[in-house]
């Protein structure tokens, strides 16, 4: 841990000149965004194009930095040390003649990749700077200050089918003068009845209509009656379909069954 005491002790150990030089280099490790950032900063001291940088020299500079940090008892994060280890390995590979039995990438390939990484990071830094130097909205140019809102109008389209109309009329006509349609057997609607009923109704159905719409009024309240009437009408439309009078369709299992007059 780099405490104040450590700093004091290191000051006494190192001559002032050496300490100043070290400080000029290190400044503050927290100021670097990782080993690659540090390497990029170090590479600038070579004062050459990043493409012609000496990776060997750079590795030596980096290792020198780490040693100085060590001497100053500056705490370095693990990734700095991992990089140091890797650069030490790279340095030895670059200095030694290539081992023919060694598979994998050559030291030159590794060095070239490091140079590429540095060049790419530098390029992105420049790009970021150029991006931020652009004219920006809300600073250099502006959008409309008084946007006029688009008014949303909801238009309602009413729809009704002929069957709705007929059923509505029948409902009125059966209200007073007529006895509502009631079967003798209260809760049973036979297939024959349904068939007879559907034969009359089907001629008014040129478009696909849910079978449910054909069920007689008043049969949907009691579950028993609803089951009976649904089954009867289902059987009836099957009959009618068999006879070629209507067409049936169903989108998927349990989807509403739709019917329409054949040839419509």
């Amino acid at each position: 841990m780099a405490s104040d005491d450590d700093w004091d002790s290191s000051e006494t150990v190192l001559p002032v000149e050496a300490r100043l030089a070290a400080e000029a280099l290190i400044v503050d490790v927290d100021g670097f965004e990782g080993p690659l950032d540090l390497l990029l900063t170090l590479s600038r001291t070579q004062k050459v194009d990043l493409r012609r940088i000496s990776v060997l020299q750079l590795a030596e500079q980096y290792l020198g930095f780490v040693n100085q940090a060590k001497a100053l008892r500056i705490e370095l994060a693990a990734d700095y040390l991992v990089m140091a280890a890797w650069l030490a390995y790279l340095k030895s590979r670059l200095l030694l003649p290539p081992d023919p039995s060694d598979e994998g990438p050559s030291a030159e390939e590794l060095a070239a990749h490091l140079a590429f990484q540095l060049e790419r990071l530098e390029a992105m830094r420049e790009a970021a700077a150029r991006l931020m130097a652009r004219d920006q909205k809300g600073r250099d140019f502006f959008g409309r200050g008084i946007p006029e809102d688009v008014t949303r109008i909801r238009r309602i389209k009413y729809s009704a089918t002929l069957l709705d109309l007929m059923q509505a009329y029948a409902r009125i006509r059966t209200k007073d003068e007529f006895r509502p349609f009631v079967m003798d057997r209260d809760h049973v609607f036979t297939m024959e009845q349904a068939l007879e009923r559907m034969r009359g109704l089907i001629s008014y159905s040129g478009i696909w209509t849910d079978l449910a719409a054909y069920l007689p009024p008043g049969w949907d309240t009691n579950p028993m009656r609803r089951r009976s009437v649904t089954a009867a009408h289902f059987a009836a439309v099957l009959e009618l379909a068999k006879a070629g009078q209507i067409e049936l369709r169903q989108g998927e299992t349990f989807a509403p069954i739709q019917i329409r007059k054949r040839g419509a």
Partner: protein
Amino acid sequence: MSDTTELQEKSLFEAPPIAEQERMVEAILFATAEPMTVADLSARLPHGCDAAEALAYLRRRYEGRGVQLVRVGDAWAFRTAPDLGHLMHKETVEQKKLSRAAIETLAIVAYHQPVTRAEIEEIRGVAVSRGTIDQLLELDWIRFGRRRMTPGRPVTFVVTETFLDHFGLESARDLPGIKELRQAGLLDSRPLPGADKTDDEDEATTGQSELFED
């Protein structure tokens, strides 16, 4: 250093050309959140500018355009040209089933036309709200027919072409008659005694008795 002071001094005396002032006023009025007075504009423009004159040029430039420079009290702002207001609306269509009262009223008009409001109410057994009639009129499914030649000369209602269109009918005569309704099981096939009489009376007033031929 001397360059800048010179420049500043120059701008003190020499305002930008009026075309440039116009551009400036245009940008300011576009971007501000509120209409701006001549004084507001002058405060923002470089020294020596004539905001009123720039405004006049700008106003002329936008004459007949999709947006216009308009006066709002003492201030100025860009606004959509009045004739393009309809572009600022967005329509969404929603499908809705007609209410029971409306469909019943419509059915009565269709079967009994020409029919008066009193007659509709008599057949339905309940009062017909103004809204229901209005809705059907608005949908253009019913319209006013001739006035009935009875005391009070009440207006009658008839169905329209639009109605026939919507329901795929060639004429109101194509509406299924009582017989078909009965066969279809929509009406009880065994009317109660006296029911036929009522039926006949209705037919007499409808003038569409052929529809109900048994």
